[in-house]
C-alpha cells in the first residue's frame, strides 16, 4: 500500500514538470513581491513590465515571486528568456522595467550594465558563487525562495517538492523520527532544542489526539526571515509540518502567524488549499491511511506570544501569558493535549533531511549544530538582507565577507546577535563560530537570527538601554523578576545615559539584578532579557565608566551628555543652511557674521550637523557638555 504514494506522486510531479517546462519555452519575468519587495515599490515595477509587454504584444509572463534575500537591492526582477542566461536585475524602477522589455525581450540585448547577477554559469556574467557572499553562503532552506511562484504549487513540485512526503509515507513513523533524531536538527526559533527529542516525547504520550504547531509569530524587531520564507516558499514549511505530524502521530496542525503579516497568512492559506487539491493534505494523504489537516491561526502580536506556552494559551482564547514548566507542552499543550511547537525554519529542514538523509544534513555545519543558520543582517552593514550560511561560519566572515563590511569607512564596534535579548559582542569575539553553543558561551545567543551590526557611532550603554526597554515593555508582567526587575534596570540605565548617575556602585546593582532576573524569571523572555546589559557590561565596561565618572558619552549619542557647537574656525560666514534647518530657531548670527547655537533653545535634533556643507563640517558635538565653556571661553579671547 505504501508504494502507492510514490506512484501517485510521480504522476503529479510529471504533470507539474510538463507545465513548468512549457512555461520556460517563453520569456518569463519574475518580480520579487514579498513584503520587502513591495515596500521598495515592486508593485509599480510589475505593472510597468506588464504594460510594456502588452503594448508590444509579447508572449511573456510576469510572475510574482518571494524574497531572494538581497533586500538592499529591491525591487528585484529576474528575466529568463529562452536562448539567454537568466539574469537578475536590482534597483529596478518603472523606467528600467520598460527599457528591459524593449532592449531585452523585444530586441536581444540583456542590458548587462543593469544586471546584478546571472543565475546560471555562463561565459559572460558572474553568478552568485562568483561573489564573496556566494562563497560563504550555502542555501539550504532559502534555495528556492525568490525563484519560484509561491502561489503555484506546481513550481514547488517541479523542484521535487513533496517528494519527501511521498517517500516517508512508505516508511514507519519511527523511521522518520529516527532520521530526524540522527540528523540532530536543532530548533531554529531560539533555544536550539533538538527537534527529534521533542517529537519523540510527544509521540510517546498515550493520548491519541496530538497537535503540531508552526510558530510564525516572529516578534523580534527587525527580524523578517520567517515572514520571508512563509511568503516565498510556503509549501516547504507545509511539507515539513505534514512530515512531522506523521512522525509524531499528530492529528491536526496549525500555523500561528502574527496578524501583522497579512501577506504571509494569505500565501499560506492559498498554499494549503492547493496542497489539499493535490492530495498532500486531508484524508488519506497520497492514497495512504494517514489523515492530517492544517489550520491557520492569526496571532495577536504581543512579543511574548511567541513563547510556546503563551502561544498555546493565546490559541485557546486566553491571555497570551507563559506558564511554568513542567509540564512540557509535549505532555500537556494546546487544549491540554500533547503538542509540538516548532519554528518556521525548523520545519523547512525536515523535507530536505527526509529526502537527502541525515548524513547529508550533518555534512554541513558543526557536529553540535549541523546545517545552516539563517540571519537577517541589518544595521551598519553594506549588504543588508537575508543570508544563509553553514553553522560554524565565523561572525567575521558573515559581517565582512557576506555582508561586505561596514559602510562609510566607519569602524566596527559590536554585533548584537539573537534578537532583543541577544548579546552584544565586540571585535575580539568576531572569530566566534556561529553555532548554538559557541554563541551562548560568548554571552549572546542564536535567537531567531536577528543580527544588528553597530559601528563607532553607536553608544553601547544606549544600545543596552534600547533593547532592555523593548523587553521591559514586552514583559507580560506575570512574574516578579521580569515585571519589576527589568523596570529597575531600565531606571538605572536611564540615569546613566542621562548623566544622573554618579555612583559606580550602580553598576554592581545593575549586574546583580541582571543575574537574578536571568536565574529567577519564569519564562525565557525574562531569562534572556538581561543579555544585552550583561554583555555590554562584560565587553564595553569602559563606556559605562566614562558615562558615570566623566558624564561623557564617547560615541556622542546620549543626548543629555552632549551639546552641539559651531566651531568658529570652520564656519563660513557666507553660508546660512544651518539657520534654516533648525526647527527651534536656536541658531543665530553673531556680530562677526559667524553662526552660533543658543543652547537654551537647542533640542539636539542633529539637523544642523547633517546640513552643514561637507566643505565646512563646522557643527560638532561635544561631550561632556561642560566642554562648551572651554570652547566658548577660548574663542572669545
Amino acid at each position: 500500500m505504501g508504494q502507492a504514494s510514490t506512484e501517485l506522486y510521480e504522476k503529479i510531479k510529471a504533470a507539474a514538470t510538463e507545465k513548468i517546462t512549457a512555461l520556460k519555452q517563453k520569456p518569463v519575468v519574475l518580480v520579487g513581491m514579498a513584503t520587502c519587495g513591495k515596500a521598495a515599490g515592486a508593485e509599480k515595477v510589475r505593472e510597468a513590465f506588464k504594460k510594456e509587454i502588452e503594448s508590444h504584444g509579447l508572449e511573456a509572463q510576469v510572475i510574482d515571486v518571494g524574497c531572494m534575500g538581497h533586500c538592499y537591492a529591491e525591487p528585484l526582477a529576474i528575466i529568463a528568456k529562452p536562448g539567454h542566461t537568466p539574469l537578475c536585475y536590482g534597483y529596478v524602477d518603472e523606467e528600467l522595467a520598460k527599457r528591459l522589455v524593449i532592449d531585452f525581450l523585444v530586441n536581444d540585448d540583456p542590458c548587462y550594465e543593469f544586471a546584478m547577477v546571472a543565475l546560471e554559469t555562463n561565459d559572460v556574467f558572474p553568478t552568485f558563487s562568483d561573489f564573496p557572499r556566494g562563497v560563504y553562503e550555502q542555501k539550504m532552506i532559502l534555495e528556492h525562495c525568490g525563484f519560484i511562484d509561491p502561489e503555484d504549487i506546481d513550481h514547488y513540485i517541479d523542484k521535487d517538492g513533496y517528494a519527501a512526503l511521498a517517500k516517508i509515507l512508505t516508511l514507519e513513523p519511527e523511521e522518520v523520527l529516527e532520521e530526524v533524531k540522527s540528523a540532530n536538527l536543532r530548533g531554529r526559533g531560539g533555544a536550539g532544542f533538538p527537534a527529534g527529542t521533542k517529537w519523540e516525547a510527544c509521540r510517546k504520550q498515550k493520548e491519541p489526539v496530538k497537535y503540531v504547531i508552526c510558530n510564525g509569530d516572529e516578534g523580534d524587531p527587525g527580524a523578517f526571515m520567517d515572514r520571508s520564507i512563509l511568503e516565498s516558499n510556503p509549501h516547504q514549511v507545509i511539507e515539513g509540518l505534514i512530515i512531522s505530524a506523521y512522525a509524531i502521530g499528530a492529528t491536526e496542525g496549525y500555523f500561528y502567524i502574527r496578524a501583522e503579516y497579512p501577506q504571509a497568512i494569505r500565501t499560506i492559506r492559498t498554499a494549503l488549499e492547493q496542497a489539499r487539491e493535490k492530495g498532500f493534505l486531508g484524508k488519506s494523504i497520497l492514497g495512504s491511511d494517514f489523515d492530517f489537516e492544517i489550520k491557520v491561526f492569526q496571532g495577536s502580536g504581543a512579543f511574548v506570544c511567541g513563547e510556546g506556552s503563551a502561544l498555546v494559551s493565546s490559541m485557546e482564547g486566553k491571555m497570551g501569558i507563559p506558564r511554568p514548566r513542567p509540564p512540557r507542552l509535549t505532555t500537556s499543550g494546546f487544549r491540554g493535549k500533547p503538542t509540538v511547537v516548532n519554528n518556521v525554519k525548523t520545519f523547512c529542514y525536515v523535507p530536505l533531511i527526509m529526502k537527502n538523509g541525515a548524513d547529508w544534513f550533518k555534512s554541513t555545519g558543526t557536529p553540535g549544530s549541523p546545517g545552516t543558520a539563517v540571519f537577517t543582517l541589518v544595521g551598519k552593514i553594506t549588504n543588508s538582507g537575508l543570508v544563509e550560511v553553514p553553522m560554524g561560519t565565523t561572525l567575521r566572515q558573515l559581517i565582512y565577507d557576506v555582508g561586505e563590511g561596514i559602510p562609510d569607512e566607519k569602524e566596527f564596534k559590536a554585533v548584537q546577535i539573537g534578537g532583543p535579548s541577544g548579546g552584544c559582542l565586540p571585535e575580539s569575539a568576531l572569530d566566534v563560530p556561529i553555532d548554538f553553543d559557541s554563541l551562548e558561551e560568548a554571552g549572546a545567543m542564536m535567537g531567531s537570527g536577528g543580527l544588528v551590526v553597530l559601528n563607532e557611532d553607536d553608544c553601547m550603554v544606549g544600545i543596552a538601554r534600547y533593547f532592555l526597554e523593548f523587553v521591559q515593555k514586552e514583559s507580560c508582567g506575570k512574574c516578579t523578576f521580569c515585571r519589576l526587575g527589568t523596570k529597575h534596570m531600565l531606571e538605572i540605565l536611564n540615569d546613566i545615559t542621562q548623566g544622573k548617575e554618579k555612583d559606580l556602585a550602580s553598576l554592581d546593582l545593575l549586574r546583580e539584578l541582571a543575574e537574578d532576573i536571568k536565574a529567577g524569571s519564569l519564562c525565557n523572555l525574562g531569562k534572556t532579557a538581561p543579555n544585552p546589559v550583561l554583555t555590554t557590561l562584560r565587553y564595553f565596561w569602559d563606556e559605562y565608566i566614562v558615562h558615570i565618572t566623566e558624564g561623557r558619552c564617547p560615541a556622542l549619542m546620549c543626548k543629555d551628555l552632549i551639546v552641539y557647537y559651531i566651531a568658529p574656525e570652520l564656519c563660513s560666514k557666507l553660508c546660512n543652511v544651518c539657520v534654516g534647518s533648525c526647527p527651534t530657531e536656536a541658531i543665530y548670527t553673531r556680530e562677526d557674521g559667524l553662526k552660533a547655537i543658543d543652547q537654551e533653545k537647542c533640542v539636539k535634533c542633529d539637523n544642523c550637523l547633517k546640513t552643514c556643507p561637507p566643505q565646512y563640517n563646522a557643527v560638532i558635538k561635544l561631550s561632556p557638555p561642560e566642554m562648551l565653556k572651554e570652547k566658548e571661553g577660548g574663542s572669545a579671547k
Partner: protein
Amino acid sequence: MSKKITLTIDGREITAPEGEKLLWVALDNDIYIPNLCAVKEIDPPQASCRLCFVEVEGYREPVTACNLAVTEGMVVKTRSPAVDRLVKTAFELLLSDHRLKCSECPKNRSCELQKIAKERRLKLRLTRFRPLVKDLPIDDSPDTFAFDPTRCVLCGRCVWEDHEVAGVGAIGFSRRGIDRRVTTFGDTSLADSPCIECGFCVEVCPVGALSFKE
C-alpha cells in the same frame, strides 16, 4: 495515584504521595518555604511570585518548589546562598512596588510579607531599589471591604477565589508588564461590578490589599 515515595528535605526524611508538588509537601510537614501565589488547586501553578526557590540535587540552579513534583529519593535543601540571594531580590522587588506603611496597614502582624521577612531575616524596607509604588486610588465602594491596589502583590489568589470558588467573575488581571494589576472588568468600581461581596477574596489576600472594613 497515591503511591508513597520518600524524599529528604533539609536532611529530614519525609514520605509523601508521588507526584505531589514539593511546596505542599514541605508546608504540610512544617518546613516553611516562602510563597505568595501558591494555591493548591491551581494546576498548573501560577509560579509567578518567584519566592519558593529551593535547591534540588541534580538541578544546577535553584528551582521553584510550587511546580516541582516530588519523586522517590529526591534530595531538597530549602536554603543555600543562591536560594537566599534570589529570594532576597524577589522580596525586595515586591516591596519596591508595595506601599510600605505597616503601622497603617490593616494586615499589620498578619501579613505574609512580614512573615517572610521574619522567617528569612529580610528587611521590611528598601535597601537597594527606589520605590516604584504607583499612585492608584483605594476602592472602598463595597459595603464590607476595601481594595488598595498599591498594597497588592499580584499573587492572583483573589482572582482564583472569585472565578473558581465564588464563581462570580468580578475581577481579573488587566494590563501588561509593569502596569499589570487586578481590576474589575472595564475598570469600574467594585460596587459597579458583578461583585456579590462574598468576601472570599478578602480572606485569601496575603497582604493588606484586600481588607474588611473596621
